[in-house]
């Protein structure tokens, strides 16, 4: 349990924070996540990766919390989506930011502010090496809906990476 905690806790806490949770809320949700991991360890069948299992528990804890906190809003409204992205779009890069790493990280940070749920799904797919089915499990979507979700992520990310186009296409 200790190893699992040290492997995932910091990233899960950061995940909660990126969903606009306060320090206290993030700490409480982290506790709840690991208590659920501890309680449900006996029922874990090993049919999915440990990472998918833990992250799904973390996400569900957060959704349950948000549902009680904002019961009048739909799940999509709670999680993000909608509104103008213009407010989050990055300014064109200036001469001092003329390296690709800076440009991409800056663009993605702005994207993450506008679409935290999508940004985190992409980060997890990248970091954990999840395939489409594993990501679908985490998002509680069908594989087809997940393919559409990914397509939308790519489309929505595109304007944020526009200033980096020259590097990305090089």
């Amino acid at each position, binding site marked *: *349990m200790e*190893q699992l905690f040290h492997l995932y806790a910091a990233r899960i806490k950061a995940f909660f924070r990126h969903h606009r949770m306060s320090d206290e809320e993030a*700490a409480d949700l*982290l506790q709840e996540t690991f208590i659920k991991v501890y309680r449900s360890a*006996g029922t874990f069948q*090993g049919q999915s990766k440990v990472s998918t299992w833990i992250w799904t528990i973390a996400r569900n804890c957060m959704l349950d919390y948000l549902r009680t906190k904002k019961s009048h809003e739909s799940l999509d409204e709670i999680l993000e989506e909608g509104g103008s992205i213009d407010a989050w779009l990055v300014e064109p890069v200036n001469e001092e930011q003329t390296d690709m790493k800076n440009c*991409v990280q800056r663009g993605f940070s702005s994207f993450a502010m506008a679409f935290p749920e999508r940004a985190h799904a992409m980060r997890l797919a990248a970091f954990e*090496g999840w395939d489409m089915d594993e990501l679908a499990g985490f998002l509680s979507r069908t594989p087809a809906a997940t393919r559409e979700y990914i397509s939308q992520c790519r489309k929505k990310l595109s304007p944020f990476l526009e200033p980096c186009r020259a590097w990305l296409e090089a």
Partner: protein
Amino acid sequence: MIQNKAAQDDLAWFDGLSGKTETGQGALLRRELCEIERADARQEDTAHDWQRLQFAMRREQARSGWHVFAMAASALIFFSTVYMFKPISELPKEDAVMRGMAEQVMVSETAAQDAGQLEVELQRLGVKVFRHSTAEKIELHIRLTYPVQDKVRAALETRIIPLPEQGELTVLFIQSAPPAMPK
């Protein structure tokens, strides 16, 4: 036709993003996202959270009785055995029997090296090993044939990897994370 091409582009992009392929915009983005993920994790101090969790687990244990605790603990070890390579003398000793697909997690400071050594050793013994590398993990999918040769069994036992009773074995080598940055 155009829709099909767009769907293929999306899939290729996702393959790069998830580390299945190493080229293209998806792969490039993946490298940056992994860095962001690591940097964010370093900002979080979870020492107090761990103490709090230990307290909560003791409370759970007292409430549920020892048998529930034992079941949960053994199941965690069963499906996700997390070992540090050092010190071996402190490693728990249990004879876990696994059926079907089994996944083992090995956390080490030299994950790539350890994975490489096991891969080469098993391949030398005629075992099919498929490697899949992600940001900080190397997955070895080991296709065992039964009965398992003594040398293969020894190679796994040396590394304290329990042998599944049947089926495939997946071993995840995870690079141990750098310590959290003080705030």
